[in-house]
């Protein structure tokens, strides 16, 4: 938080802190990074490749 203040950011809002706390709780909610996304054969950030791959199969 001190680092954020040093950058000139406003971090004194109680509601923001409450939302941040909620985000901490969200960390525990989802388990997104399974073994599959640690597979170095696939770039886990290349979302568009997957969108296009799945998009190629959709016409009826």
């Amino acid at each position, binding site marked *: 938080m001190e680092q954020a203040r040093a950058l000139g950011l406003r971090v004194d809002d109680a509601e923001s802190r409450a939302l941040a706390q909620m985000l901490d709780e*969200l*960390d525990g909610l989802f388990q997104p990074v399974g073994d599959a996304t640690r597979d170095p054969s696939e770039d*886990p950030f290349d979302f568009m490749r997957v969108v296009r791959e799945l998009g190629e199969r959709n016409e009826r």
Partner: protein
Amino acid sequence: MSGEESRFEPMRTIARRLRAGELTPGALVDRVLARILQTDDELKAYTTVCAEEARAEAEAAERALAAGEEKGVLQGIPVSVKDLIETKGIRTTYGSRIFADNVPDADATVVTRLRDAGAVIVGKTNTHEFALGGITPPTRNPFDLDRIPGGSSGGSAAAIAAGSAVVSLGSDTGGSIRIPASYCGVVGLKPTYGLVSRVGVFPESWSLDHVGPITRYVEDAAYLLGVIAGPDPRDHTTAGTVAPDYVAELEKGAAGLRVGVPRNHFFDDVDEEVATAVRSAVQVLAVGGVEVEELDFPKPDELLAAHTAIDLGEIASNHRRLYAVHAEKYQPDTKMLIEAGFFLHAFTYVDSLRSRPQLLREVVGAMGSVDALAVPTQPIVAPRIGETAVMIGGQEHDLYFAMVRLLAVFNFTGQPALSVCCGFDSRKLPIGLQLVGRPFADATVLRLGQAYESATDWLERLPG
């Protein structure tokens, strides 16, 4: 807001009349400007009206049509543009006091494409500040002026419902096209991620932002999408994108398509009248030859959590420098979102992004053989101005989370999602049906939406 003057014909009909000499682009623009004058003191859908420029563009369109220069259905059609989208020489505020006098020196790619198609930019429609919310103050809902239009593209949807625009452009990061479409009883399409360029659109979250049409008719959305879709070398997500002829695709109809209705999440914590209207809409589709089946939607809470983390992280990144200088000029609800992002753990953001391809595969896999999902767009009808919580089934829910929980999952997956009006509640407020397709199957959701629109007469119900 009442009266027949709020009803425009479909663009195809207007285009035919323009070419038959029954109507001129100038007369059409004058009709829109007159309607803005008539309604916008109360409605406040517009932040900027560019009457002079619009009349000049209409004259140019008239000359071009007279000379036989054919540019397609949008030629000479008045279009409004969300004030988050940059327009050369026309004030673009992003809904912020910081940019109250900002006049861009270039058009957003989507605006360039509208202009190339001969459309006439008639004005800029109000957005929630930097698109960071679903309220869009001070715009009001044409169906009840004491209620919000939704947002963040609230001005666009209100203008379409009130007849002060023929078609409009909006943007959607967590529901910002579909929320106001639902509350205002109009059509809103969030296209597939990567189909439409975001260049020149103030970013909320580059991983989740989409630009799309808000219209009265599904066919108009198909026309508009056909104009704005396609590759833009300045937006990497659009690389290699091929946009089919969406209007031609509509002719295939919807019979034989398969629709899935999720058993979980999408009908939980939904107002009873809304749920009944959406289930009735699915029955209408079934009568028209659409096959319907139930399915389980995977990991909605995880999808929403990951969406939230990406959205907040990228909002903070986009705004932190501006915020450091101009914090006092931001609205309290916007401040809260920005500052929440300052607290986000780096690993939460990274894990959320890494989860995205995998979760998209799971969602598409769960769709099995269905072509689209049919779910409510919103769990409620338009709330009253000033409400921050809503009652659903006797329980109080935070308004912001109620607004995004059925929508943001599809910003995360990038799937195309269309909202069409599927009825009205007992207070005569519109209800939205959301149709969600597979990636790049935008034509499929348009076909379903068109089939539903054709089978019902909700369009006959005008504000007032």
